[in-house]
Every structure is written in structure tokens, then in C-alpha cells.
């Protein structure tokens, strides 16, 4: 495979940028349905758009599908192609430009959020999105999956921070889409289409990011509640503030118990529910906001509120929460998750019904997500996995999806789940849209090079 690759590519990839050995390829095995893994035939590390285009050309000639990959913090989604090559963008990681005056950064897809954050902080800038993998995820991965997180209430999801990008389409064409400015209406707005397309339309090779000024400091409040519903209502209230929190998240009862058991430095109460919210900015504004948030939390029944008066002291809280969420996906539980989003004002109704479903099937359901933006990632914990549990889990998932749909929301299966087809739980695309999606896929990826079988 290695020789074939170097022969075909012009310009060729460097020898160290192509891995074809058994062990190397196995380490990039990606998950398909039912916990099975699929080993790619090779792993390539292109360093620039031209190399990406060449790899895609090779794929066209051989029929071997390409699976793009960033830091791999979220597993591959959907079905696996019968033959596949993983294209890792991890070595395409230059920070091309930080334009302080215009609040724009131009970066290559392999830049990790941690490195970007450090470089931006040196210029008193930052990128608002704060996904779970806030250190290790790559910018390309965040864009391709349109990541959200606790900052999404105020700052939007990742697509709100993408102004434009350079793209290599599945068909092999290198093009600049979007803009270096706030607006570019010459032609259609394609940059937003690519955000969330999960690597099925093209490989992002450069991104123009919209930045914000780094806040002088931040205050974080940790409010403890007796029940999840109370916490949910508190989040609702905070979300409706004129000046909503910069970061907002709920930690539910199951997660609190889990953290108490597994995290040695756990700062959270062991029971009930916690609302974590942060307000950032200059001292006077921050203090006023924090007071206001405190009032709201108290009026919603917070039994205690702890204030962390600067960014550093609070970071551990956010990190522990993120770590808890990551650890939740332990390989030894059979965990099932889905991305469910509903109109914000239905959040409490949703949580109430999920609690009922959890009791009905005797399965813990923990809510990750819910940062006031109406996006939930509930996780059904099946511990230990058993045959009967699997059926119960399917039923629970079906009930949860019905709930979401009935509340006017959407379900997208984020992870391969017990062999259940994604499409089964999604609201069917409105008439005509399905055709549009298929056409778009055909336009961008006419040969079905990128993640064949994954979508449309």
C-alpha cells in the first residue's frame, strides 16, 4: 500500500506521512455499529490541500473510501465502507494568521483547541465555543461536526464562529467558500452547509474563525439544587436573561453520584443537581451579572450557591465536569446516546418525561448537554450490559425519541446504537428535502469518496 501511494501521488506524501503497517492501521480502527471495529487499509497525513486532493484522486481510481479524522475525540459515525483509508488531519496544523484588528484567525484543520487557545490568549483573543473535548479536539473536527457545549447559549454553536473555509470537495476540487469578512453574498453561503456535514461533502483544509476579545476575567457560580427539575427551571430562567451566562451547564443526579464515586478531587455535592454558570467580562459588569444570576438561582430554590471569583479557580470545575462526561462513555458500560434538540422552553417537560422513562425501564438516564440551548445528549447507562437490558434500552430510546418528536424537536443518532438505524429515530425529512440533500452530496462528492454509506 505504501509503495502504491507514493507512486500515485504527485506531489508525493512523505514516507512518514503514510502508515500501512498492521499495528498502525489497527490503532486507527474505527467503530461501526454494535461495537464492531473496522481496520483501515492505510492512514495518510496530508500536509496541504494539494496532497488532500491527490489522496482523493487515488480514492476515486481505486474505489477505496476516505474517512477524515481530526483528534478522534468523537468516534466515527454510521456504517463503515467495505474498504477505507483514514485521512488524519492531525499534521496539517499551522496557525496561518491571527488578525487581531479584524478578530479573525486563519487556521489549518489539525490545530487543537488547546494550542489555539494559548496562541489567541497571547493576543487577548479567544474562540468562544467550549466543547467537552475543549483541549484535544481539532478545529477541523469541531467545524465538521458543528460542536456545541456550555457556551452555545450565548455564543452559538461552532458554525457561528466560522466565517469561511478552504475546502477540498469529495470530487477533488480545491475551493474557497464563505468569506474573510462578516458577509459575502456573491453566490450561496456554503460555509454553513459544511459545518456539521461530518466530512461527507469535503475535507476542510483551512478555516477562517471569528474570534472574540478575551474577557478580562470570569466568575463562576455553582448552585446546588435538590431536584433535576428545579435545576432545569433555573437554567430556563438564566437562559431568558437579557445578558445570559457565558457558559451554562447542568450536572444531573446520576452524574453527581458518579463523580463522587470516581473523581478524587470532586468539588460537587454528591446528590441533587448542580447548575454551573459563568459570566465573563470586566469586573464591574461581571459582578453585576453575577449578582443578578445569583438572585435568579435563589429564587428558583438553590439550596447553596458557591462563587468562584476568577477564571483559574473555576476551570477545575469545568474540567472535572468534562472529564466526567468523557468517562461516562466507559467501554465497560453499554452506553447509548443520541443528540436530541428541542425548543428551549420545552426542556423541563423533556427532563420530566425522561425521569419517568428512566423509572419505567429501571435504567439510569443521565443528561449531558442542556446548557439552556435546548440541546440534550442523554445517555442511557446499562451496567452491566445484559440481553434483557438491551431490549429495555431500545425501548427507552424509542420512548425518548417519541418524546422529543412530540415536543417539536429533532433526534439524530450520534453514536452507533445497538444496530438501530439512525434514520429510524430521526424526524423524516420534509418532503423534497431528502432529494435536495442527495443532490448536494452528489454535487460535492460525485464518486462517493468520502465516508461512503454514511449519509444520503
Amino acid at each position, binding site marked *: 500500500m505504501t509503495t502504491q501511494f507514493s507512486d500515485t501521488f504527485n506531489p508525493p506524501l512523505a514516507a512518514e506521512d503514510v502508515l500501512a503497517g498492521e499495528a498502525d492501521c489497527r490503532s486507527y480502527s474505527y467503530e461501526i455499529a454494535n461495537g464492531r*471495529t473496522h481496520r483501515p487499509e492505510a492512514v495518510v497525513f496530508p500536509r496541504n490541500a494539494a496532497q488532500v486532493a491527490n489522496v482523493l484522486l487515488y480514492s476515486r481510481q481505486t474505489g477505496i473510501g476516505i474517512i477524515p479524522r481530526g483528534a478522534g475525540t468523537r468516534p466515527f459515525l454510521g456504517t463503515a465502507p467495505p474498504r477505507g483509508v483514514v485521512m488524519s488531519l492531525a499534521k496539517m496544523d499551522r496557525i496561518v494568521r491571527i488578525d487581531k484588528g479584524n478578530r479573525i484567525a486563519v487556521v489549518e484543520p489539525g490545530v487543537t483547541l488547546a494550542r489555539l487557545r494559548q496562541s489567541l490568549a497571547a493576543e487577548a483573543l479567544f474562540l468562544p465555543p467550549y466543547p467537552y473535548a475543549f483541549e484535544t479536539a481539532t478545529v477541523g473536527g469541531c467545524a465538521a461536526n458543528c460542536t456545541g457545549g456550555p457556551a452555545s447559549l450565548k455564543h452559538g454553536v461552532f458554525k457561528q464562529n466560522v466565517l469561511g473555509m478552504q475546502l477540498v470537495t469529495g470530487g477533488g476540487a480545491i475551493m474557497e467558500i464563505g468569506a474573510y469578512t462578516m458577509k459575502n453574498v456573491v453566490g450561496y453561503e456554503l460555509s454553513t452547509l459544511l459545518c456539521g456535514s461530518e466530512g461527507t461533502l469535503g475535507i476542510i483544509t483551512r478555516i477562517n474563525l471569528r474570534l472574540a476579545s478575551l474577557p478580562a476575567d470570569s466568575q463562576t457560580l455553582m448552585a446546588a439544587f435538590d431536584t433535576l427539575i428545579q435545576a432545569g427551571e433555573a437554567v430556563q430562567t438564566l437562559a431568558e436573561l437579557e445578558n445570559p451566562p457565558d457558559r451554562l451547564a447542568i450536572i444531573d443526579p446520576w452524574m453527581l453520584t458518579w463523580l463522587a464515586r470516581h473523581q478524587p478531587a470532586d468539588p460537587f455535592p454528591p446528590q441533587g443537581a448542580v447548575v454551573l454558570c459563568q459570566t465573563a467580562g470586566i469586573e464591574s459588569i461581571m459582578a453585576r451579572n453575577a449578582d443578578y444570576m445569583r438572585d435568579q438561582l435563589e429564587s428558583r430554590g438553590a439550596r447553596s450557591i458557591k462563587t468562584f471569583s476568577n477564571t483559574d479557580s473555576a476551570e477545575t470545575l469545568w474540567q472535572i465536569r468534562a472529564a466526567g462526561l468523557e468517562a461516562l462513555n*466507559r467501554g465497560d458500560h453499554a452506553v447509548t446516546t443520541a443528540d436530541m434538540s428541542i425548543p428551549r422552553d420545552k426542556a423541563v417537560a423533556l427532563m420530566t418525561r425522561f425521569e419517568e422513562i428512566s423509572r419505567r425501564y429501571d435504567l439510569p438516564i443521565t443528561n449531558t448537554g442542556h446548557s439552556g440551548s435546548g440541546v440534550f445528549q442523554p445517555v442511557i447507562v446499562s451496567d452491566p450490559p445484559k440481553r434483557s437490558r438491551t431490549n429495555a434500552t431500545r425501548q427507552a430510546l424509542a420512548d425518548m425519541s417519541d418524546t422529543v418528536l412530540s415536543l417539536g424537536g429533532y433526534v439524530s443518532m450520534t453514536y452507533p446504537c445497538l444496530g438501530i438505524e439512525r434514520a429510524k429515530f430521526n424526524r423524516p425529512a420534509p418532503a423534497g428535502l431528502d432529494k435536495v440533500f442527495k443532490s448536494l452530496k452528489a454535487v460535492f462528492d460525485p464518486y462517493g469518496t468520502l465516508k461512503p454509506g454514511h449519509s444520503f
Partner: protein
Amino acid sequence: MNTQFKDLKKLGDKVNACTRCGFCTYYCPIYHETREEGNVSRGKITLVQEVLKGNLDLNGDLLEKLESCLLCKTCVVNCPSGVELDKIIVSARADYVGHKGLPLLERIVFRYILPRRQLFGWLLRLVARIERVLPRSDRSGMIRHLPEFARGLGRGRNVPRISNRFLRDRLPSVIHPPRGVPVRGRVCFFAGCGMDYVYPQDGLDSVHLLNRLGIEVVFPHDQGCCGVAVMLNGDFVTARKMALETARVFESCDTVLTGCATCGATLKGYRTYLGDTAATQYRLDRLGDKIKDINEYIIDVLGMPGQTFQVRPEFKGMRITWHDPCHLGRYQGIWEQPRRILKALPNVEFVEMPDADRCCGMGGSFSITHYELSQQIAQKKADGIRASGADLVVTACPGCLVQLNDIMLKNGLPQQAIHIAHLLA
């Protein structure tokens, strides 16, 4: 399924705790340089799981991945799922050795040289003779430049000379506190190869430091190598022999001190890997309980306030910084003790360097098998040292001393790295 993976099997379901979150990619010094999945915890665990499932052979190709790990434990202490990669790697290596045997060179060194301290000593004396003709890397001539024919050990590496008089030849069996200092305790001292053969002065300094604190030091002359390379490369049979021999040598001691972080971690770590019978486990547990690092002993056991100490005159007025050896911090949980000593010292200014706890990249035999990569990793330490503005780097591990001095010389940095025992007067 394979019955051959008995060491991995001992870990049970812990091998499956990885959630593929990728937090390890942020912390792994090797992944930082190579960006390859096989070079980070997550990828290695995937491979081990594939082996246990029967999808992958435990062969040379895979062994190469298993060897490409510093065992620095940075991933371990930061893993949200608490995955202990170091145990997985060492167990996998042990299963490999159990199944396929050791490569020839390792077999010779591990089985026939390291456990035989006199033979080892003579070979080193021979090497010491040869080293005399190597070009000097520094003015004192204490560090020499490795020639091309020895590039297998590291092309262009600067190495400290093997001493012409080993520590064991300089110390009597019992070393008493100076006259006038009341004796308040008695310990045994484990030198380790680094202090015995390469840095005997640091060994002397350690012993005399203890003496000045009123501690009588016993130096059993039949002590040998701690066997870290043997154990961590998976030759548990030989490592067990060496461990039990060490346990025998120190049988009558209550407290065994060492000034080498790696030896300390290893002596405390025998109990994790080498207990094959209840009797052996008991003996290794007992040995492990006796071991104390010198910093740990001074602060935790003697309860000495930091103000007890002075610095040697040649270090007065310097700005000093501390490098945390992996084997001291992440392996033994010793972080604060050396800092308490250093921060309280008069006539010097203590500064923290950025990433003081980042692995220096030595990794013992890793820096021999992967010299260039180890230098790339070390470069980050050199950058940190430069950024700290310190004149002197202080640490407590001969392995780190070799690596840090090498990279600083390569960078043309004026600083040197020394052992804390040598700093203190």
C-alpha cells in the same frame, strides 16, 4: 482465546476502561512530536484490545508500538477514566517476552550482565577507559561526545563519563555523622547504577547530607542494580530474581533511602508486577514499604523544616529551578518536598519553570532506541529552562541529569543540571 496473555489478563476489565475520549493526546510527549495514534495511550489500548480479541498478533511490529512509550504516566494521571496505561504496557511487554522471548542483546544484558554486579562493574571500568579518548563536550571533561561508531547509543549524544572510582569503592559499610552531631536515626542507602557508576559524587553528597542531619548510613556492598530496565521491558523472571536479591540485601534494614527517583519508584514498584507467589508478594511488599526517596525522608519522616539547609558557596546568588522527574512526581507522589527545601534556601532565588513536570524524554532505554525522538521531547525542556531564567536546574534523578545536561549543551545553554544533594551544604 489465548491463554498466553497471563499478565494482561491480570488486569481484567481495566483494559476496557478506555472511552477513546482522546484526553491523552493532549498530554503525551511522544504524540506531540509524531501525531500518530499508535504513539499515544488511546491507540496503544486499541492495539492491546485487538491482541486480546485475537485480531492482531503480538509480534515485532506491535512490540515496536509498545516500546514507543516513555512510561512517564502523564496520560495516566490525567485520564478521566483512570486507565493505567503503564500497567497495560508493561504487562503486554511481559506477555510478549513470555511468549516470544527477549531479543538477543537484551537477553545478554538483562540476564547475564545486570544481575552480576561485579561483571557489570568490570565492563563499566572498561568503558570508562575508552571514554577517556572521546572528545570533551564541556570544559571539565566530565561530559564527552559519543563518537560515530557509537551512534547506536545516540548520535552526537553528550554523556557523562563513567567514574574512575565507583561509589561502592568510596564508601565504607557504615558512614557515621560527623563528631558533635547526635545520632538520631539509621538508614540504609541504595545507590543505583547512576549514582554508583556515573555520579558517585552525588551519592557521597546524599550520604553526607544525611550524616549532617544526624543519620547514620549503612551501605551494603552487595547491593546491585534495581533492574528497572529488566522489569519494564517485560523480563519478569530476571527482574524477580534481582528484586528478591535486593530484598535479601536489605533484609535487616528498616528504612532504605535512595537518591535516584527511578530506583525509588522501581523498588516501590516491584510489588505491582513481580509477585508470583504469596511468599514473593509478601517479601516485595515488605521491601517496598521500607523505601524512601531522600527528599521524602527529609521532609516527611524527619520533619525537617526547609530552613535547615544552606547552599554550597559556588551556588550562592543563583536563580534555581526544579525539574520533576516522572519517577518522583507521578510515580511516587513526591512534588512538594523538594520544593519546600529549595524555596526556603537562603542566598538563592527559586523560580518555577514552565512545565516543570513534563517528562525529559530520557525514558531509560527509550532514549537509546529512540534517540532522535527523545531529543525532540527534551527540546521542550530546554525551552522551558530558557524561559524560566534560571541559572541552575535541580533534580533528583541521574537519568534526568544525563538527558537535561545533554540537551542544554546541544542548545548552547549555559545552565547545568545538578542533583539536589549536591546543591545543599
